[in-house]
């Protein structure tokens, strides 16, 4: 009994390590699950997020928060819709449709094991989804009727800082100097009651930002209250929220999703509707209020309005904005001048009809918005900016549809912004035993842009100036083998920043996973990308003309994870890259060894040592690192040197988690790291993070 309760307690602590809330309710219901339900360790960052982070696509932090919230409040498979289920790891759109159709045909599921009656659900899929789904029994149904019964409050504070003093903090060059301290401070208050109530308040100051510039206190404050229920009034959101409809061409916000080893699922958008914004990001959210109602069971109507200030560069002569948006950093006088320089007022709506039958379901919807800026947007006059949105007002409207029948699904969205129409369409099949295929075509003209959309694209920043064809597939073989891969070919029909001609590229990935035992996971991955980049070429009469040059990047990886026991996990990775541009070839190699050790039931250690060598930034190597709960680190390593980190997690009493982390990078052969105001003298940089979280 003691051993078992130790494990249970430690399992809970591990969940706390990432989850915003302790999943007491969920745990109790999943309690009957076999021990292999922890196939995915509780605070691991999924491969899709690692890939998206490398590509700079989406908001991995938000996706982490989404997974944490799913673990804290698992989705009830008996009441959830296709969108909600599709956002769960291991489910995807095909299984989500199959689950809902089966529920309509054969009635509610009595337990999670009962999900096996859905023809397409494999043991592996069930193991993957287990931490995120539940079947509410009668007792918890009663609890659901008293929504404040399971009220949970969590308070989190995090500070992080680089120990070496960067150039920008020395005050040598006042125009480029940072106004504040190098500390990053984040405080978050979160109140939830199951899935019915979510209220968060996030306050953040980035390194270099001051506590008293422009306003008193934190540089960034974000908060939201969201109420969800099953009846005609589905959801009310007040504060900061995001809107996700269809495939996201008009309104969407990608989490960690893009191209990844989850080849048949990660390009798809879940279209989760209006939802609270709980990430630490400072851009790409709406501020105001939104409501979703369901006057009829098959009809959902949403309306929302937002008014918020956006960072922008204002031309001092014309008063027009030359660019809107940014990274949310307000450290220097120039960055502070951009802060909140324009105001965007926005109103939008969406409607969807969803018909569910015993054999499948089909949904058709429309979504759109109109937005007005208080200063006209006038992009700089360059050839590549010719089709960028301009003017004071924009409007985008999109029609989307998707459906599932048996092992097949199909989806499409057509959106119109200004004079341009963009479209994305695709279809997939899951013929069984873990095999899936997905084909997706996209056609985004150069003139299309939606500031609040994020359709599937190679380019970060959403749909526009791109067309391409994506094919992804995966299949499983007996003995623990899984094969997955994708091929994507794309073309940018108009110029891009620093690419003076229309250009094209392609990308492919192949990954083999081997899990011979529950405690051993290996994967080998090959990824290759080839694209045209801008270059200069000799023209007639000694002129220099813009040209294209092909750049290729290939990487190979071998990764092994071994759970030596419940308290010790070892990971090893070898990875190499080759980057070729014209006649120039650079290569890189990375090796790391990683250990996680549960010393006692309340103390856990994480540590890693990596050695790397890359003779150029183009051959850089990424490694996803464990960080304090809710955060992740993905350093791009190049040069010759080593990187190490150690993290300690302590849970002295129930509900309280303390974490401390020290990471260091040592670069040989150089005496200065980074550039500009972030440059650090010496061959070493060290970053320290402390976090405390209390929940009750």
């Amino acid at each position, binding site marked *: 009994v003691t051993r078992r309760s130790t494990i249970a307690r430690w399992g809970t602590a591990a969940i706390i390590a990432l989850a915003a809330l302790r999943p007491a309710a969920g745990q109790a219901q999943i309690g009957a699950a076999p021990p292999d339900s922890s196939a995915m360790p509780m605070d691991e960052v999924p491969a899709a997020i690692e890939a998206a982070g490398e590509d700079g696509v989406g908001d991995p932090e938000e996706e982490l928060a989404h997974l944490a919230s799913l673990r804290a409040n698992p989705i009830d498979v008996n009441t959830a819709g296709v969108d909600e289920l599709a956002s769960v790891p291991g489910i995807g759109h095909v299984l989500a449709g199959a689950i809902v159709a089966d529920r309509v045909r054969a009635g509610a599921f009595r337990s999670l094991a009962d999900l096996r009656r859905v023809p397409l659900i494999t043991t592996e899929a069930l193991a993957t989804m287990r931490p995120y789904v539940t079947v509410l029994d009668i007792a918890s149904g009663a609890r659901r009727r008293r929504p404040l019964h399971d009220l949970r409050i969590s308070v989190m504070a995090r500070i992080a800082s680089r120990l070496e003093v960067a150039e920008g903090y020395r005050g040598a060059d006042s125009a480029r100097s940072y106004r504040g301290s190098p500390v990053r401070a984040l405080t978050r208050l979160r109140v939830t009651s199951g899935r019915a109530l979510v209220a968060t308040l996030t306050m953040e100051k980035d390194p270099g930002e001051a506590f008293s510039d422009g306003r008193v206190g934190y540089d960034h404050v974000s908060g939201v209250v969201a109420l969800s229920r099953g009846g005609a009034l589905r959801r009310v959101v007040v504060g900061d929220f995001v809107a996700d409809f269809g495939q996201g061409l008009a309104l969407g916000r990608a989490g960690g999703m893009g191209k990844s080893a989850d080849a048949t699922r990660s390009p798809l958008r879940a279209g989760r509707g209006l939802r609270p914004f709980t990430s630490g990001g400072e851009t790409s959210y709406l501020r105001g209020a939104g409501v979703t109602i369901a006057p009829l069971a098959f009809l959902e109507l949403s309306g929302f309005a937002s008014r918020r200030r956006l960072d922008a560069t204002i031309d001092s002569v014309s008063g027009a904005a030359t660019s809107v948006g940014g990274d949310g950093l307000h450290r220097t006088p120039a960055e502070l001048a951009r802060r909140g320089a324009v105001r965007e007022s926005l109103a939008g709506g969406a409607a969807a009809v969803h018909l569910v039958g015993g054999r499948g379901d089909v949904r058709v919807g429309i979504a759109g918005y109109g937005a007005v800026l208080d200063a006209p947007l006038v992009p700089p006059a360059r050839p590549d900016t010719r089709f960028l949105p301009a003017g004071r007002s924009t409007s985008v409207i999109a029609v989307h549809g998707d459906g599932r029948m048996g092992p097949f699904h199909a989806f499409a969205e057509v959106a119109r912004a200004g004079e341009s129409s963009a479209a994305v369409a695709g279809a997939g099949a899951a013929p069984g035993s873990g095999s899936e295929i997905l084909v997706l075509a996209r056609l985004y003209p150069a003139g299309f842009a939606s500031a609040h959309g994020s359709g599937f694209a190679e380019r970060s920043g959403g749909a526009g100036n791109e067309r391409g064809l994506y094919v992804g597939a995966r299949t499983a073989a007996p003995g623990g083998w899984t094969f997955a891969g994708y091929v994507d070919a794309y073309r940018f029909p108009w110029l891009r920043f620093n690419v003076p001609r229309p250009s094209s590229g392609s990308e492919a990935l192949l990954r083999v996973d081997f899990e*011979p035992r529950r405690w051993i996971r290996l994967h080998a991955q090959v990824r290759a990308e080839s694209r045209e980049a801008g270059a200069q070429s000799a023209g007639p009469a000694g002129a220099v003309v813009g040209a294209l040059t092909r750049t290729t990047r290939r990487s190979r990886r071998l990764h092994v994870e*071994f759970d030596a*026991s419940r308290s*010790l996990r*070892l990971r090893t990775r070898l990875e190499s890259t080759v980057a070729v541009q014209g006649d120039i070839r650079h290569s890189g*190699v990375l*090796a790391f060894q990683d250990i996680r050790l549960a010393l006692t039931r309340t103390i856990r250690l994480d540590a890693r040592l990596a050695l790397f060598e890359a003779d150029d930034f183009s051959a850089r190597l990424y490694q996803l690192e464990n960080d304090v709960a809710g955060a992740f680190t993905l350093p791009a390593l190049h040069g010759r040197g*080593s990187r190490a980190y150690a993290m300690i997690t302590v849970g002295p009493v129930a509900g309280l988690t303390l974490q401390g982390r020290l990471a260091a990078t040592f670069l*040989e052969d150089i005496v200065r790291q980074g550039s500009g105001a972030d440059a650090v003298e010496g061959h070493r940089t060290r970053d320290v993070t402390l976090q405390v979280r209390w929940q009750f």
Partner: protein
Amino acid sequence: VAAAAAAVPTRAGTFAAGVRIHGPRDFRETRFTGGYARTLPLAPARRLAVALRGDVHILAIEGFGSTSTADVTAGVQADILPALRAGLAARNVAGIARADSADLRVPLSADPTLLAGLAFRPGASTLLLLAWEKQLDFPPVARAGFEFAAVGALLLRAGASTAASGVPARLSFGAGLHAGRARADIAVEWHEVLGASPAFGIAFRP
């Protein structure tokens, strides 16, 4: 070159010690090694062994004097499948923080290093070995080895190792004769620059 080593299994683990002398009297490298290894009964069916090794290197040049340095290697070994064993090791981890990689006073063997290896035994008579090593200051090196029990007590071996360019930089061949408690091994290694060097060793299990 001469070397001698002994390993003593005890209830608390296996202890080992050795010495290796390389070079003539006027340029002599000496290495003393002490090691300890044991298996951890952490979980059923998952054999895991951990080991710690300490080395002291002494370099003596006649007329110049001598210098010495020490490093520590930590490693783990696990049986992934009945026929597949994996090993990982890290050497001189503390050295990663040093400022100057080109410090000639530090012996090459003390360079911070990560090592990974696989041993695969597809049948009773065959053993395949793969190893990968990355030293902080050098490109990674991959090695492969093969052992085959030809007839009775005779073992035949072959090995190859890459250089940075990917071509084999070292090739080696060897044979072993295992008879009861005693065994004898001979090998010859061919190196791109150094040419061929032979080796001979005997071991005895009391």
